[in-house]
Each structure stands twice: as C-alpha cells, then as structure tokens.
C-alpha cells in the first residue's frame, strides 16, 4: 500500500525543507518515493537539487488546447497519461512531479476527471508519496489526489502559524477531503519558544509530532540557494526528521 503524506503550512514556515528532508530520509531507506510539488509558490525541485521546466498544469493546458486537433476517436486519457509521464522527473530513488500552473477560466471538469484516474494509477507505483502543498489545499478540493493518509502542518514558532494548523483542520472537514491523520511539526524552534509552542498546540488540540530546531546548515544553504538533499547526517534538522519519520512509522 502506498502511504500518501501531504505537507502544508503557511508560507515561510519551511514546509518545503521538511518535505525535502523527509524525501531524503525515505530514499536513504530504499523506499521509492513520488514527490509532488503542489504549491505554485514553492521550490521543491531546487530544494531537492533538480530542475523542473514544466508540470502537470502545462500538460493539462496542452490537452485543452489540442483537443480539437487530435484525431476524433483517439483515447485522450492515454495521451494525457503519457504527457504526465513526460514531465515526471526521474531521480535516483524518487520521481518528482510539479503541478505547476493553475487552471485558467475554461472548464476543467473533464481534464481533471482524466487526471484523477491517471494519478490514482501512478500513485500506486510508489511506497510513499510526499506532497508539498499550499495551505489552501486546492488540489485536495479538486480531488486530483484523492486520499491522504497523513496531513502534516508545518508551523514556525508563532501563534499565527499554529492557528493556520487549526484552520487547515477545519478546511479538511469542509472539503470533505479524505484525510486520516493531521499532525503538526514545529519548525525553526528555539529554546525561547519551545514550551509556548507545545502549550499552544495542546490548547488547539493539535498533535505535535516533532520540533525542528533552527539549523545553521539549512540557513546557510538557504542563503546561497544550494539543495538541502545532501545535508550531512548529523545536521540538527536531519536528526529530528529521522525521529519524526519513526513516529510516523515510515
């Protein structure tokens, strides 16, 4: 069975870093991972150290633009599927799929319906799927990815960050998204805010499964823009992610 994990949170909390480090952990443990960059504002490819020129959004536009030019009786699903496979970036141990451009003004019902079927089949090929997604959970409302085992909200030390967690939990309910568990990871934690974070989480009844301390190695790499994928094993963040992964039974 494929385990589907979505990582979300408000901008700047470091959810992409957490996603990248989880992928790093999983591939080191010989798990085959599908990484999905589902946040138009994120940079998962760079954080992992690969390049993405195009994504599902572009292929969906291709299908929309070309539909009247395709042979009338051609099977559009197999064409679309092949196009998705074309934009899948194949790396050692994991594949990366970028959602890319959002929908335009036309009707996407049919294209998304095809996409749902294609994604259902694709996802089954992996041990774990890690989705880096915006807090609005757009792709879940569209049910492009139907079932999520664990939704992880990454928050910084602020009360606002944790509030986002609360709102996301409400949103999941409203969207009737099929999410089994919701967890919180506190990121960029310092000695000064550590206790307040766990208190606030308790108050909001959010399950805190890890607190990643400020990691100087990540800060340095963020400044220069180098990938986080090859961080050394003794990095503070890498070690905490390992703990979190174990708690998640990954």
């Amino acid at each position, binding site marked *: 069975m494929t385990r589907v994990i979505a990582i979300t949170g408000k901008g700047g909390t470091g959810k992409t870093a957490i996603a990248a480090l989880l992928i790093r952990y999983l591939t080191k443990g010989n798990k085959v991972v599908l990484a999905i960059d589902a946040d138009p504002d994120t940079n998962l490819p760079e954080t992992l150290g690969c390049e993405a020129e195009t994504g599902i959004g572009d292929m969906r536009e291709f299908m929309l633009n070309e539909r009247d030019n395709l042979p009338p009786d051609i*099977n559009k699903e197999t064409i679309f599927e*092949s196009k998705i496979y074309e934009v899948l970036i194949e790396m050692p141990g994991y594949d990366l799929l970028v959602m890319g451009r959002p929908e335009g003004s036309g009707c996407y019902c049919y294209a998304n319906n095809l996409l749902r079927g294609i994604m259902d089949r694709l996802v089954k090929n992996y041990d774990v799927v890690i989705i880096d997604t915006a807090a609005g959970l757009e792709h879940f409302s569209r049910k492009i990815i139907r079932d999520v085992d664990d939704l992880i909200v990454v928050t910084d030390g602020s009360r606002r960050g944790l509030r986002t967690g609360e709102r996301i939990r409400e949103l999941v309910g409203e969207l009737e998204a099929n999410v089994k568990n919701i967890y919180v990871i506190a990121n960029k934690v310092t000695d000064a805010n550590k206790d307040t974070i766990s208190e606030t989480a308790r108050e909001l009844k959010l399950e805190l499964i890890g607190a990643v301390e400020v990691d100087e190695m990540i800060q340095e790499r963020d400044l220069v823009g180098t990938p986080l994928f090859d961080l050394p094993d003794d990095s503070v963040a890498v070690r905490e992610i390992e703990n979190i992964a174990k708690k998640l039974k990954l």
Partner: protein
Amino acid sequence: MADEFPFEISPMFEGERVRKDGMYVELAGPKSKGFELVKSVEMDEIEDGKFTLIGPDLSTMEEGSRHPIAMIYRIAGELVEQDLEAIVERRNHDFQNYIQGVMHLNQRYDIWIRISKDAMKKGLNSFEQIAKATMMLFKNELPFIEKIEATYITDLAEVEKELDGAIATYQARDERTRDLHDEDVDVFYGCTLCQSFAPTNVCVVTPDRISLCGAINWFDGRAAAKVDPEGPQFAIEKGEIIDAVGGEYSGVNDLAKSLSNGEYDRIKIHSFFEFPHTSCGCFEVVGFYIPEVDGIGWVDRDFTGTAPNGLPFSTMAGQTGGGKQIVGFLGIGINYFRSPKFIEVDGGWNRVVWMPKHLKDKVLADIPEGIVDKVATEEDASDLESLKAFLIEKKHPILERWVEEEEDEAIEETATAAPTIMQMPAQTMMAGAPMAMPAGFGAGGSGVKIILKNAKVSIDRIIIKKIE
C-alpha cells in the same frame, strides 16, 4: 496457459510503471521514434502466430539504452474488416501492459515502451516472447481474429521507412471517423460531470454535437462509458426519431426527464429555439438571440468586450447556465460550429450574424463560403445599429427573414382566429418558447421567464404590449 512465458500476464499489471532506476531498455517514446499499427488482410496473406523481427533483439541491447520500435500486426478472419483496425490496435496498449515488467504508454506514433530489469532477470530476452504473448491475448480477447502475424522493427532506418505509410493509414482512418454522423449510430452519450453545480443539466454528446465544455466528443463518451458504465459518461439509446432535423429522440427525452428530475422532458439537440439543450456553465461559447435582426450572435469566454446587444459574455453566461432550458441563449462547445447539423433547424450559419473576431478566425475554415464575409465581428459592429447596417450592406441572408417577417405581421394583424402564444411567428416570440416574453420587452432585453407548472388555463388570446 501462460506457462510458456517467463513473465506473468494479468490485468493487475496495468498501470505498472517502470522507473528509470529499474529500466532495462526504453523503446520509442518522446526521445525516439516508433509506432504501432494493425492492418486487416486476407486469410491467405498471413501465417498465424508468425513473428518477424527486423533489427536488433532485446538480448543484444545494452542496459539503459533507448531504441526505436515499430509493432505491426496483420490480422485476418471472416469478420475482420478495415473499420476494426483502430479498435484492435488500441488493445495493444492494454495487452502489453498486462505483461509484468512491460510498460506501454500512448498510441499510434507516440507509443512509449519500457522493459524492466526484473523482467530481464526472470528470463525475458527476446521481442518474440512479448509479440507471442500479445498475439495470444489478441486472439483470446478478440475471437473474431482468426489469424494474426506480427512484425517488430527496431532498426531506425526501417522504422522511418514504414512510418510514412502508417501515418497515411491513421489519416485515412481519421477522415472516416470525422464522417460519422448522428444518423450513423444507435447510441449517444450523456455526461453529468457538471451536475455538481447545475443539478438538472444533462449534456448530450452525439457524433454531430460535442459537449458544451468542448472536451468530450462522442468517441470520448464511448471510451469512458465502456470503462465505467456507471460513471459520469454513459450511453443513451437514441430510441425513436421524433425530429430528425431538430435532433429530437425518444431515448434522449426519456433520459432528460429522469436526470433533470422532471425539470424538462424534451430536448432538441440541434435547435436553438425549441426545447434547446440545457447549459451547465462550462460552455465555451454562448449563443444569443438578437430579436432586432432576428439573428443569432455568439460570444466566447475570451471576449472581454460587450456584444452588440450590450452584454458581455459573463452576463449572458449567467443567464444561460444552471442547467435550464433557456430559450434565446444556448451554450455550445467551439467544435459544434464545425458540425453539419449546427442549429440546422434554425437556419444554420445563415442565422449567424455576429461573433468575436478571434472566435470567427478559429472556425473560419468551417464557415460556408457564401456567408463567411457576412458574419460581423466587433470590428464591423459594436451595437445594434451598426450591426443592422453591416448586415444590409453585406446582403446577409438574414435579410430574407426580415421580408418574411413583414409579411407575417401583415397576416397576423388580419387574423382573428385565436392564435396562442405557441403559434406566434418566430420573430416576435422565439418560436415555441413556452411563455417566454417577446424579445425587446422590458429594459435591456434581459428577459423574463414565466413558468406555469401543472396549470390548466384556457385562453383565447394573450396580447402583451410595451406600455406606450
């Protein structure tokens, strides 16, 4: 059954992806060339089960390498005919995916195949094994194939040599499918994908009418309904023909009634004015009746200005959508402009008076020659006055209706025998619109709709007039 093969064969391997890490070879695909083709031949032209390979075999291919491939199957049998080639050919995708360790994507000259390292380890070493397994599946699953022979080509020059012929075959097939019309089939397809926000909308997709969103043609409906008959696309038996030109069928009416919860019980697929098709909200283009010229204008989503009736797309879309039969507005997919039955009953292209230039350019080749210069765009007409002037200047066939109209009006004035609303002539009423208001009544032409349900009213004559 499959003991002779060093791999398992089962539909459960469909969707199995061969990743780069686990790939032994890649065949055809976006970075190479190839195609698959099924040809029907006479029984004595082929030898059943024979396999020919032109070019290097799997065993001599280097791990991680990429090669072109062409797969040509010749089939014969009493029931085998040319029209079946495409259907049979499409199954190659299914059957090869049944083979564990083989990933087959796409179709025709876009095929993309990968063979896994695991499969090679288990004893796969020749294309012959794959071809034999595929041929076995063809014969088992499609029993009308009595004989089948396969030729695979992995030599680039040879693939290229055969490719042109294959493309010509595909094109000839496409010509034939484009020539399929409503009268050639017994089944249409319905789609309820949009019922989530337009609960009474039922999209009817026929060979001559694409879905309103422009995404689903008759063949797409057929493919989807076959895979999941209970899914959002499903078959509609045509039933009895009630109106061949307007496109009314008993089967469609029956379904309309049940799927719209009784909201409406008649649909004329190709009619603008009488029991028109409902519109969800997804339509690419909305058609609008312009009573002042008795013509129809069309405006699409990308047009940001206002049509000659003073309304932008968004306003008209709001009136059209929601899964109701709105006489005077009609949502369509762009490809419907290319249909030979395009609002045929209402005069077809001769009734079209205005459309945005970019939309007109898109379908230019499909507009009948005599009318193409007579359809105004925003460059020719921005309001009713300039539209009228343009139509007169270009001698648009709609002018003939104006003459008829004047004659009709003269008749009507003298008529004393109670004409009901249903019998009023088209120019004052949008014919057949039950209880729709005369166009131009009220401000801005935004329209009023009165629906009388279960009413038993007997009226000799209704006169609705603008207050002078």
